[in-house]
Structures are given as C-alpha cells and as structure tokens.
C-alpha cells in the first residue's frame, strides 16, 4: 500500500505534470535527467550540443542560486551527465556538499557521487565535507555509512584521513561485513595517505583472517599486503600469518562447489589470487615462510583446472609466487614449465602473461627460460603488438655468446619486417647484444651495417660514432669495411647514419678503397673520380641532412692527402666557402685556409685517425666539443693572431671527425710521432691549454692514467685531496656588487664541491630581485640551492648567500659561467661573467 502510494506520487512528480507545476507557482520544474539526455542526443553537431548544454547549465545555475532544495539532486545528476560528456561542472561542487548534508538517502547518494566525481584534494572545498563524512560514518543506516566510507576511500586527502582514521578503525572492528570490507579498503587508503597511521590499524587486523565472509577476507588481505609492503616491521610481524593464509587457500581449492563464490567452476579466484600475492611478499627472502608454503603452492600448481581464464589467472599468480620466494628447485622447474605451456596456449592473453613473467625470471633462471627460446622467437611473428613487444624484449634477454648468430638472424629479420614503433628499440637492442657477444669483428661490423641499412633512420644518434670507433679499432677490417660501405652508398643514400659512417670511412680509408686490397670479398675497381663523384653527390643530394654534408665535405678534404686529384678537391672546397649553410661554409673556409696558408701542415692534420681508446661509457666524451665551443680560443697571447685559426680549425676538425661521442683523441697522439709532430702537438697543446683538462676519460677518477699531455698542460696535476683550507675567491666585482665564493668539500662524496656564494652590495641603494644563476660545462653537474634572500642590502649591511653543489666526477678544472640579474635604483641590471680562476683545491 505504502509503496504503491509513493510510486504514484513519484510518477506525477516525474512527469512534471501541470498540476505540480502550478503548485510551484512562478518557477517551472527543471527538466528531468532523462529528458535532458534525450534532448542532447538529438543534437546533430557539436555546436548544437554545446548550445543545449549551455542553456541547461544556465537554468541549473539559476536554480542553484535560488537555493531550490526539491530539485537540487536532479540538477546535480544532470550536471554529472554533462561532466561525463566533458563539459565543465565544477560549479556544482558546493551543491554536492549540500546534498551530502541532506537527510534524504537519494540526496546523499547523488551528493557523494558528485563529490567523488567533481571534487578532489586540490580544492579546499573538500575539507568542508569532513564533518558530514564523520557524522555519516556514525549513521544508523549501513548504506549511508557505506557511502561515506566509499567517498573517503576514494578521494580523502591526508588531512581528512587524519581526522577520520579513528572512525574507520572502529568500523574495521564491527561485525557487519558490508561495512567491514569497505572499512578495510578505506584503511588502505588512509595508510597510503598517512603512513604513520599504520600502527593504529594493527590491533584490528588480528581477527580479520578468521572472518568467514569472502568480501571481508579479500579486502583484509589487501590491507595486510599494503601494510607488509610499507613497513619491514609489519612484514616480520605478519609472517606468523602464513599458516593461516595457507589454510584459507587450502580450503578454497579443496572445498567443493559453492554457488556463492563460484566463477567458472573455481571457488573465488579473486581471493586465491590475492592470497597468493600476499604469500609472495611474506615468503620473499624468508626460508621458514617459504618452506611453509611450498606444499600448498605445489598443490595449487597441479590441481588448478586450466581450461578457463580463471584457472590460468590463479596458475599465473602461483608461478610468480614460486619464482619470487625461496622455493624448492623442483617447484621452480615446475613453474617455468607452466610458463612454457602458457607460451603454447591458444589464448593470446595467456601467452602475453607468460612472456611478461618469463622476462621477470630470465635473470634468475636463465637456463630454464633458454629452453623455451624457439617458442619465444616464434612469438616475434605474432600479429599482436603487445605480444611482439614482450617477445622482442625477452629475445634480447636470451641472447648469449652461444646463440648470438642464430638469435641475431631472427631479430634482424624481425627488424626488417616490424612496425616502425619497434625499430628504434630493436636497433639499439641489436647494437647492445652485438657489442657484448659479437663472435668476430667482421660479424659485428656486418651486423651493425645491416641495421643501418634496414632501419637507419630509426637508430639512436650515438650509433654513428660508436660504429666509427668500432671500425677504426679493427685495423685489419679497414679495406673490407670501406669497400662494403662504398657499395652500400652506391645502392642507397637515404639512410643518413649509414651515409655518415660511409663518408667518414671513405675519407679515412679512401686509399684502401682504390688499391682494392680486400681479401674477404671480390675487390672492386674504382677510380678517384668515381669516389669523389659519390661524395660530391652527397653534398648536393636533397636527401642529405646538414650533418651528413659536413661528414661528406670533411671526407673530401681528407682525401686530398690520399688521392692525387688535389685540384678537384680544392675546387669543391672553395665552392662551399660560399654555402648558405653556415656550418658547411665555415668548414669550407677553414679547409680552404688549410690549402692556402698552412699547406705544409695539411698532411699531418689530415692523417689517419689513431686507434681510439675504448671507454666504458659515453659519459665523459663531450670534452672535445665542449672545448671547441666554450673556450676562449686565445690563451697564449704570444702567438701571432693567425695561428689561432688553424688551432680552432683543428679543433673543429677533431670535433667533426670524432663525432660527438668518440673518445678523446689527443691522448694517443704523442705515441704516434707524426711528421709534423711538433707543430701538431703545439696546436693540440694550444687546445688543451684552453681547457687544461682534456682528460682522457679515466674510468675511475682515482686512478689517474699516465697523463700524456702533462708537458703541454700549464697546470700541474695534484692527486691529493685538500679537504680543508680551500682559500675563498672573488668571482665577480662590478658596479658595487661583489660576489665571493667559499668552498668546502662535501662528505662523504669528495667529488662534490660545495660552493657558497656571498653577494654583497657596496652602493647606497638596495639591489632587489637579485637572481644568481650559474652554468658549468656538460661534464659537471650543478645544483643551485635556494638563496637566503633576493635583496642585497646597501652599504655592505648584509649578504645574500646561496649554496651551489658541483659534482665533478672527472676532477676537471672547474669553470663556471654566471649570470646576475637584479634591480638597482629602479632599473634592471643584467650581467654575465666567466669564472675560471677557481683554486685548484676546489676541484682536485
């Protein structure tokens, strides 16, 4: 009877009958949500839709303004629909709060939903909810309590969590399972927001696992997992729960059919998965716990029915747990074999998770995974990109010295045929694997060249210098390589990295190309003019990037000492002296000068590159370039000015020839007594004086290699670390602003210099908006901490201090560029300065 009545009145209200409307006098009832949705769906264009929404929003706003309580919840519901469509709905935030405070369940329900969708902790408004939530957590209706818990667990900020954690803890202890499960997840949220509140929930966890309700068990396991992951103490504490968890898991797999929790014939797979996850965390690195769960894991692994996804989900989780804990070796083999079976499964999802988990275990159980190599390689041919990517990563992880040839064949084939999105990763993977396991130099060079020809435009920038270095170092392969590259150039000049390497090699080994001394392959017959034609072709080709042209011009220049057609080369070089490309022009002009003024030095400068030293990393190799770019070139004023040009030119030359990442060349120079050695060394000495530390990239800063340029360098090298007593210095003193540096060495890392700047102002006006900025060469790392103030008081009445930390791995001489901006007497001042008179103790 009651329900009937309410339903009737509801229908009347819902249809916004004229009767009701007339009751409401002057204000028409807002249209219903359903009406609105239907109207919006009739919109034919986005503009039309937007217009409708705007109209409705205006109506809703005015309704909000009139503090209309009857229709507030309907309006907020409409607003949420608009929000879903992507229209701004934030003006409803406060209305949500009003709804939450209402007594009606309908209002609260919509209000809390709106709060979850429209509010987050960025808006202070959310704090206004705290009190409402607190009241609702103590409400007499469990559903209202549930709504409050849900909202808190979804969007509670740390302030809110702090205020309400007590209520949550209380609810975690109730006997009402509907509330208890929500409280457990809410507790997880509270712990994530405010980890120090974790202790508070500890007593409540005691009885959680004896609960019968699966929802509560599930969320309790989540809570325990969260606590174990957050604190080692908790982890140790909860290890004693392992037998209890094992018992629950055993009951789940042993119990017969229970309609409540059955999913495709398996009893509560979600709970099983959660428990297996918790066991994984508890058993990791702990012998006793691992021992306690060995049996059950074996049982799950053998007894789970795997014809359906659910079964596989459990099996997958079991495998991960077996691999993570200290399980018996037999169990591990079983686990890997399950994954092997997964790989052959028809379901792509299963194959995907198998690849993912094999990737995780490949480090620890390499040989076991290796057995499934062929299956994994087959997955490279899968149509699915997700599977392909996993298979590619796993294939690279499986490459070793024994299988490199076979695996590379497959991977290069994959590189040929794969989507562009894979090429970059695949190419760098091939490079890495080849560098690590190459069976021979020739194979290595062939492999890299193959990558450059098939996926040249996708390789990383550093592959060019790496390949050049590799080629340089394999002396016996020079003739073979240059011939192969020359042929590749004839075929295709569109792959820029390949063209760059080829140009470089032809420039270096052009004479070998002509002499046709190649033993490994049929020698080719080429003439000087043909070679120069190809290189000049590169200079004019539209396909060539500016960098490629640079390589090509330099190659031509180098050939001037290897070929007899010097006149042709001179001509080409002089033509590019007026190139519109500034870089190319500069090179051409410099080369021209080399022909004209310094012809006697040309053979020496263009001599074949010495074998480069192998460095472990690419880190410190930018020195050459840094020197070229940032150093003031005039260091020894006694030189006549013109001598500077070849110096910087040689510098450029080295920088170009060496590429970005080829390690320092100067170091080995003195070992090769060049014909014009003296002058050459002089030039280089000049260079190195510019930055007295063209350090040959010592692998570890402590072991100084024989410093071959010692004699040339004006700075003696100290190896002792003067930790104390570094004299302060004045870095800048201009227009009344004085900046002093004081030094100390950071403990425990002696590579970090801690510099404190003290800025003082001797003028009679304050300097405001004072900003100090500093920059160091790329080999250093700099960290500027915040300044003590941005006002430098007048008349030396105080200083602004700021701390700079400089990481100097290479122990190179410290150089710094500083930029100062401040406002003085109303006008903005900006100044740049170079600081390179750091006391040696500060960087050694």
């Amino acid at each position, binding site marked *: 009877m009651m329900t009937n009545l309410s339903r009737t009145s509801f229908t009347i209200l819902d249809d916004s009958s004229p009767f009701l409307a007339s009751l409401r006098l002057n204000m028409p009832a807002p249209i219903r949500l359903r009406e609105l949705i239907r109207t919006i769906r009739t919109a034919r264009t986005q503009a039309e839709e937007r217009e409708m929404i705007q109209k409705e929003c205006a109506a809703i706003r005015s309704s909000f303004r009139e503090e209309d309580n009857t229709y507030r919840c309907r309006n907020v519901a409409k607003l949420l629909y608009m929000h879903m469509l992507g*229209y701004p709905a934030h003006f409803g935030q406060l209305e949500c709060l009003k709804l939450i405070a209402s007594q009606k369940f309908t209002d609260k329900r919509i209000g809390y939903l709106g709060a979850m969708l429209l509010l987050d902790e960025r808006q202070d408004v959310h704090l206004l909810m705290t009190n409402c939530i607190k009241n609702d957590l103590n409400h007499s209706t469990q559903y209202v309590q549930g709504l409050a818990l849900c909202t808190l667990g979804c969007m509670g900020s740390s302030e809110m969590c702090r205020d309400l954690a007590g209520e949550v803890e209380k609810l975690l202890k109730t006997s009402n399972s509907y509330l208890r499960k929500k409280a457990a997840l809410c507790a997880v949220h509270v712990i994530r927001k405010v980890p120090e509140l974790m202790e508070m929930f500890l007593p409540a966890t005691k009885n959680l696992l004896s609960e019968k309700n699966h929802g509560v068990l599930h969320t309790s396991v989540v809570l325990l997992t969260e606590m174990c992951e957050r604190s080692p103490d908790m982890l140790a504490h909860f290890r004693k729960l392992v037998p209890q968890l094992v018992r629950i898991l055993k009951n789940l797999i042993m119990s017969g059919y229970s309609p409540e929790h059955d999913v495709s014939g398996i009893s509560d797979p979600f709970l099983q998965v959660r428990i297996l996850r918790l066991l994984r965390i508890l058993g990791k690195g702990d012998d006793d716990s691992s021992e306690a769960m060995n049996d059950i894991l074996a049982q799950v692994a053998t007894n789970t029915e795997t014809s359906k996804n659910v079964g596989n989900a459990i099996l997958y989780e079991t495998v991960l747990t077996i691999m993570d804990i200290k399980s018996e070796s037999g169990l591990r083999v079983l686990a890997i074999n399950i994954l092997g079976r997964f790989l052959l499964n028809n379901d792509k999802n299963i194959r995907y998770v198998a690849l993912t988990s094999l990737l995780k275990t490949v480090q620890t159980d390499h040989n076991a995974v290796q057995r499934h190599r062929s299956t994994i390689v087959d997955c490279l041919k899968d149509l*699915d990109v997700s599977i392909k990517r996993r298979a590619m990563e796993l294939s690279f992880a499986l490459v070793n010295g024994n299988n490199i040839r076979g695996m590379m064949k497959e991977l290069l084939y994959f590189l040929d045929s794969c989507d562009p999105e894979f090429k970059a990763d695949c190419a760098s993977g091939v490079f890495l694997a080849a560098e690590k396991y190459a069976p021979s130099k020739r194979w290595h060079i062939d492999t890299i060249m193959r990558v450059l020809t098939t996926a040249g435009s996708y390789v990383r920038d550093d592959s060019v210098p790496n390949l050049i270095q590799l080629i340089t170092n394999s002396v016996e392969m020079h003739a073979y390589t240059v011939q192969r590259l020359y042929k590749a150039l004839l075929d295709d000049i569109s792959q820029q990295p390949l063209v760059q390497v080829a140009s470089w090699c032809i420039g270096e080994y052009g004479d070998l190309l002509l002499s046709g001394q190649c033993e490994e392959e049929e020698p080719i017959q080429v003439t000087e003019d043909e070679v120069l034609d190809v290189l000049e072709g590169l200079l004019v080709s539209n396909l060539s990037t500016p960098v490629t042209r640079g390589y090509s011009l330099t190659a031509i220049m180098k050939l001037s000492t290897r070929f007899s057609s010097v006149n042709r080369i001179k001509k080409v070089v002089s033509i590019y002296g007026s190139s519109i490309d500034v870089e190319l022009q500069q090179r051409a002009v410099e080369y021209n000068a080399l022909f004209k003024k310094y012809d006697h030095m040309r053979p020496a400068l263009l001599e074949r590159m010495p074998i480069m030293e192998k460095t472990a990393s690419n880190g410190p190799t930018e020195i050459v370039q840094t020197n070229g770019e940032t150093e003031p070139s005039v260091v020894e004023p006694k030189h006549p000015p013109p001598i500077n040009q070849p110096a910087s030119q040689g510098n450029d030359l080295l920088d170009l020839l060496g590429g970005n990442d080829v390690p320092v060349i100067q170091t080995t120079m003195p070992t090769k007594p060049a014909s014009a050695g003296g002058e050459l060394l002089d030039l280089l000495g000049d260079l190195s004086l510019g930055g007295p530390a063209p350090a040959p990239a010592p692998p570890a800063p402590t072991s100084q290699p024989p410093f071959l340029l010692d004699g040339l360098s004006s700075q003696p090298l100290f190896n002792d670390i003067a930790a104390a007593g570094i004299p302060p210095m004045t870095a800048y003193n201009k227009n009344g602003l004085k900046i002093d540096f004081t030094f100390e060495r950071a403990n425990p890392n002696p590579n970090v210099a801690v510099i404190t700047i003290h800025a003082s102002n001797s003028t009679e006006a304050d300097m405001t908006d004072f900003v100090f900025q500093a920059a160091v060469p790329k080999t250093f790392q700099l960290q500027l901490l915040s300044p003590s103030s941005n006002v430098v008081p007048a008349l030396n009445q105080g200083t602004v201090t700021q701390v700079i930390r400089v990481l100097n791995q290479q122990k190179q001489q410290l150089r710094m560029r500083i930029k100062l901006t401040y406002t003085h007497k109303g006008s903005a001042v900006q100044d740049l300065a170079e600081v390179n008179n750091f006391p040696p103790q500060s960087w050694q």
Partner: protein
Amino acid sequence: MSRFLLCLGGSVYGAERGKAGTEVRDRGCFAAHTRSGMHPFEKTVCLQKCGDTEDMQQQIIRETFHLVSKRDDNVCNFLEGGSLIGGSDYKLIYRHYATLYFVFCVDSSESELGILDLIQVFVETLDKCFENVCELDLIFHMDKVHYILQEVVMGGMVLETNMNEIVAQVEVQNRMEKSEGGLSAAPARAVSAVKNMNLPEIPRNINIGDINIKVPSLSPF
C-alpha cells in the same frame, strides 16, 4: 590498483550522428573514474592525467578508444601504458562486448588475468541489474552504473566479487531511494521507455536486439 575504468561505446552514438550527415565522433558514453592520489608519484600524475579536468578526461577517453578500437578481436586484451594513462607501470586491460568496450587502467599490483575476470563479473552484474544491459542503459542510468561500480571497486581496489551480494546490496539501496521518491523511474521501466522512445526516431540504424548483451552470448570464460 586501478586508476580508472572506462566503458566505451562509440558505434551507436556515431551511427546516429553519421546518419545526420554531419559528424561522426567517437564518444565515451560512460566514464567512471575510480581515482586515487595515493603514492606521491602517483599524486602528480594522477591529478593531472587521470582526467581531473574535463579536457583531460576527454583526451584520455579519445586516446583509449583510439587505441582499443583498432585492435582485432583475436589479439590479447592488454595494452602497455602510454604517457597519457600514467606511464609504463600502467596497463590498459579491456574486454569487448558487442558495441561496448570495458577498459580498466591498472598498475602492476593487479593480476592481468584477474582483471579480465573482474570485468566479466562487473558486466554480468550490470546485466542482472538492468535485465539485459545495453548501451542506452549505461547512458541513461550512468548514476546507477556508478552505484553498481561502487559496490565492486572502491578507491581503485576490488571490494566485492560475489555477484549476488552486489546485486542484493544495490537493490536494497535502490529501494531506499525509490521509497523517498527517487531521482528517476526504476531501471527496467526506464529502459523500456527509452527503447520505445528511440525506436521510431531511428528505426533502421539501431537494432536493439543486436545491441543487447545477453549473458549466454558472452565469450566463454
């Protein structure tokens, strides 16, 4: 834990507009964000990228739909996370039902295969609550869908997977709402009203029978 759940169904909506000859847009018909701002790392990512602003939300929906809809049915149901959804720790896990995609975005603390089962449970629950759920139910009753989701997932974590329990709790709450007058009519009546209302408008393009998702026709578990 999950970052968000999207339910995408562009086709019916698009077809309607396509018929009008103006524009065909992919449009998420329902986007529920079970959002979190948990870890400090996630906080920043999440606040900016979980669709907290309307624009971002739309962008995520578009991007996700774009990624998911171009995939064949015979490929796996996992997509590695892009920058938009929070980086490499996040995966998109989806299931495709007739014209609808259910897409979960989860981090590595969730079992991939488990989430597939969860989507199935969620959809079956929707089906029970709406008596043969269809896209239009989700559009016209997005509040109800949110309420159902709230009983399944809370704060990005799985709350309950027992379907009967979920349905029972949702129904009790719906009855409470109804006894107060409610926001709109009961789901079943509304659906029939919607269907009746829509059929004459576009008789050829929407075949309700096809759109309906019936549990027996769902892909076998």
